[in-house]
């Protein structure tokens, strides 16, 4: 790198044309030595919680101990989520792409010595197939990554999200430059329509059509118009929007600015969930950096177009993910939704025309503008174009962030990419769409994952949580879990949601205790229909889905609870008993010591017994027993 380039890169300079952006990008690329070893440490949520920060520190320390100045070469880079969360903390060594998993600070020295100073792999820390024992060295080889089609999350886990130059080097803001210099706002909307993109927040409304209606509303009502990012990712089990905001905040901003240009908006809002402090921090940094490079704010790239945005932190209310509730929350009020007979594109935030899109939707827009709407529409299937990012969680080997083309069969995601539930057993069900979605049984494992196919089987796409359940998960319990969740989160404004959910939950409470009758299942169905028809917002009208789908596909399990008073999965506390297998128990006393009810008795080195009448069914004995002697029946 020449000294002048280095100086130029250190201080942001205001870019005044698409050509400037290109020059900057080339300067950054030129300044990077492709052969320079880089230790890329994942700082996604999962890896950080597993000690990723200490691992990065150990690498920095290791380099300095080895007498290598980290500022020169090699370097340590921290990124957003690299994807395979269940095997974190993850570390990748570039340029060879060696992938290391479950890295501990103590491993840093060996990795530096072998893979950074030399090009030797440390196989004990590499991905090993649990079935075949095969060892994979790089992302390109690991099936979890190889079988994905990463487009939206392509840069996540590769770039440093706190450094705009790293993003620009990989092409960030080039779509914005193209749009501002070569396209009219009308052309942008047309391109969106051609792309067939449907909103990634859950309902799957065509984004281009939404923008078109907004333009029509603006014609009638004039400006101002607002653009809003819905980053209130509340579905439990879903973290892809969080991962995008944390790992590639510039993609969201670039999409938002393009949208603002298309609609003539001068002001935008990013509503981000309070539980994602890192997303808020990274977005704030990204916005400040984008402003200083002239990519946001007054007269962007000297195009005459000005736009700025601000972040609103959520305050912990699931219903605020609903667009009208989100608007009232931005206005500083309690987030109650309103009936949607007047659409948000006509009357949204502050009563003005407003276009609200989900994080992942906005992050798709630079891709669409880059490749063109027609090209984009070739990805996926005809009525669900593009890719979708999923969070694969629950009872699955590879928990993590997955991106596949729309229409990919469920089994490919859960079994081939996710590695299945482990032990070679089939999964029991996959829950998609969070509290608004449903449970899809193993028999429908080949269901293509796209908007329409999921709706057809009674579930929905939702935001992208995919929760895998195995035979030890009880569908009544899962239904109860979601109802309790929604009952607590219901804003209480409309009666079907406020009272209907409580009553449904009461029925399932009874079921979990073996009470009730088969007739209650009819009641559940009837209440569900009342909610579907009568609730004010989508939170209420989609709330029955988890219960309805489990009744549809697992009715026997419901009946087992009410008629046989049994929980086949061994979950519902009132219907199970814990016992000790005298053959396996060697009298180590560990369970007796830990039992909070003190109801396990027995002499040392002799089989123990549980007094079922005193047992709290807390399961601590099961957790403590090292000899597999405790069983649930």
């Amino acid at each position, binding site marked *: 790198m020449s000294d002048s380039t280095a100086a130029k890169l250190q201080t942001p300079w205001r870019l005044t044309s698409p050509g400037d952006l290109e020059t900057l990008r080339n300067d950054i690329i030129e300044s990077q030595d492709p052969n320079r070893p880089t230790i890329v440490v994942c700082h996604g949520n*999962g890896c950080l*919680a*597993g000690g990723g920060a200490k691992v990065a520190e150990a690498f920095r320390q290791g380099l300095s101990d080895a007498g290598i100045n980290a500022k020169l070469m090699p370097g340590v880079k921290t990124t957003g989520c690299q994807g395979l969360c269940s095997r974190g903390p993850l570390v990748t060594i570039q340029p060879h792409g060696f992938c290391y998993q479950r890295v501990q600070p103590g491993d840093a020295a060996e990795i530096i010595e072998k893979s950074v100073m030399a090009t030797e792999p440390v196989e004990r820390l590499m991905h090993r197939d649990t079935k075949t024992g095969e060892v994979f060295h790089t992302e390109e080889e690991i099936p979890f990554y190889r079988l994905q089609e990463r487009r939206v999350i392509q840069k996540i886990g590769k770039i440093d999200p706190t450094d705009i130059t790293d993003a620009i080097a990989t092409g960030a803001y080039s779509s914005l430059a193209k749009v501002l210099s070569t396209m009219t706002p009308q052309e942008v909307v047309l391109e969106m329509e051609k792309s067939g993109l449907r909103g990634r927040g859950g309902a799957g409304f065509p984004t281009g059509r939404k923008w078109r209606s907004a333009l029509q509303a603006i014609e009638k009502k004039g400006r101002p118009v607002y653009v809003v990012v819905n980053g209130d990712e509340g579905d439990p089990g879903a973290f892809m929007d969080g991962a995008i905001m944390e790992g590639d905040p510039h993609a969201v901003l670039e999409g938002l600015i393009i949208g603002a240009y298309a609609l003539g908006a001068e002001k935008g809002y990013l509503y981000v969930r309070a*539980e994602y402090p890192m997303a808020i921090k990274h977005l704030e940094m990204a916005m400040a950096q984008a402003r200083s490079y002239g990519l946001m704010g007054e007269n962007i790239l000297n195009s005459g177009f000005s736009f700025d945005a601000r972040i609103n932190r959520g305050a912990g209310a699931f219903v605020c993910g609903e667009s009208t509730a989100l608007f009232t929350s931005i206005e500083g009020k309690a987030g109650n939704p309103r009936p949607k007979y007047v659409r948000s594109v006509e009357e949204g935030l502050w009563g003005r025309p407003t276009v609200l899109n989900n994080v992942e939707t906005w992050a798709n827009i630079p891709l669409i503008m880059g490749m063109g709407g027609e090209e984009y529409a070739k990805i996926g299937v005809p009525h669900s174009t593009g890719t979708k990012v999923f969070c694969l969680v629950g009872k699955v080997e590879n*928990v993590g962030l997955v991106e596949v083309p729309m229409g990919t069969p469920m089994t490919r995601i859960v079994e081939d990419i996710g590695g299945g539930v482990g032990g070679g057993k089939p999964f029991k069900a996959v829950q998609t769409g969070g509290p608004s979605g449903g449970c899809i049984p193993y028999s429908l494992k080949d269901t293509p994952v796209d908007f329409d196919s999921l709706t057809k089987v009674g579930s929905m796409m939702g935001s992208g949580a995919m929760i895998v359940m195995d035979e030890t998960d009880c569908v009544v319990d899962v239904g109860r879990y979601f109802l309790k969740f929604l009952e607590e989160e219901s*804003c209480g404004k409309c009666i079907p949601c406020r009272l209907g959910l409580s009553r449904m939950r009461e029925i399932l409470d009874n079921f979990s205790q073996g009470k009730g009758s088969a007739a209650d299942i009819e009641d559940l169905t009837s209440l569900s229909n009342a909610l579907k028809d009568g609730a004010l917002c989508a939170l209420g009208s989609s709330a029955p889905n988890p219960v309805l789908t489990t009744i549809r596909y697992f009715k026997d399990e419901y009946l087992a609870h009410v008629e046989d008073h049994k929980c086949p999965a061994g979950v519902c506390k009132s219907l199970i008993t814990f016992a000790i297998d005298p053959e396996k128990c060697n009298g180590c006393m560990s369970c007796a010591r830990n039992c909070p009810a003190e109801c396990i008795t027995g002499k040392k080195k002799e089989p123990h017994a549980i007094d079922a009448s005193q047992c709290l069914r807390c399961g601590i004995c099961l957790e403590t027993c090292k000899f597999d002697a405790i069983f649930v029946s």
Partner: protein
Amino acid sequence: MNPVGTNLEEIMDRYPGEPEYLIFLLQDIQSSYGYISPESMQRVCDRTGVPLTRAYSVATFYQSFRLDPKGEHEIKVCLGTACHLKGGQRLVDELERRLHVEAGGTTEDMRFTLNTVNCLGACAISPVMVVDDEYHPSMSVKKMDRELKRLRHEGEKEVGNV
């Protein structure tokens, strides 16, 4: 001068005195003091022109606001779907029993506040427990016990030093 009062004014100055900044102000007060006292609520209302009743309706609507002081340590248990499937509720039950407090409450000695949270997005390491913003991955009741003991012991040592 009351130092708390000074800080409160500092927070007030961060935003324009308009109703739309109500939540911003409450959030900043919540993160500085751990709860929103009647005095600070009144001050926010004076500043933004929002009636006191409406400010309380907002503060009670959102889960992240507390109207009573928080304990010395805050223990949060994630109850997202993945954590639920892997025994998150059991952790809550056991913590409630050990601390003699219901989720959302604070122990009488003001040592611990127990809260649940809907999903932290750290599903890979479920069930997750967070103690004073530090994540504890793949929690079991046994590990939780150990952590609780550590926190209690730490407190006793501090008391001993005084």
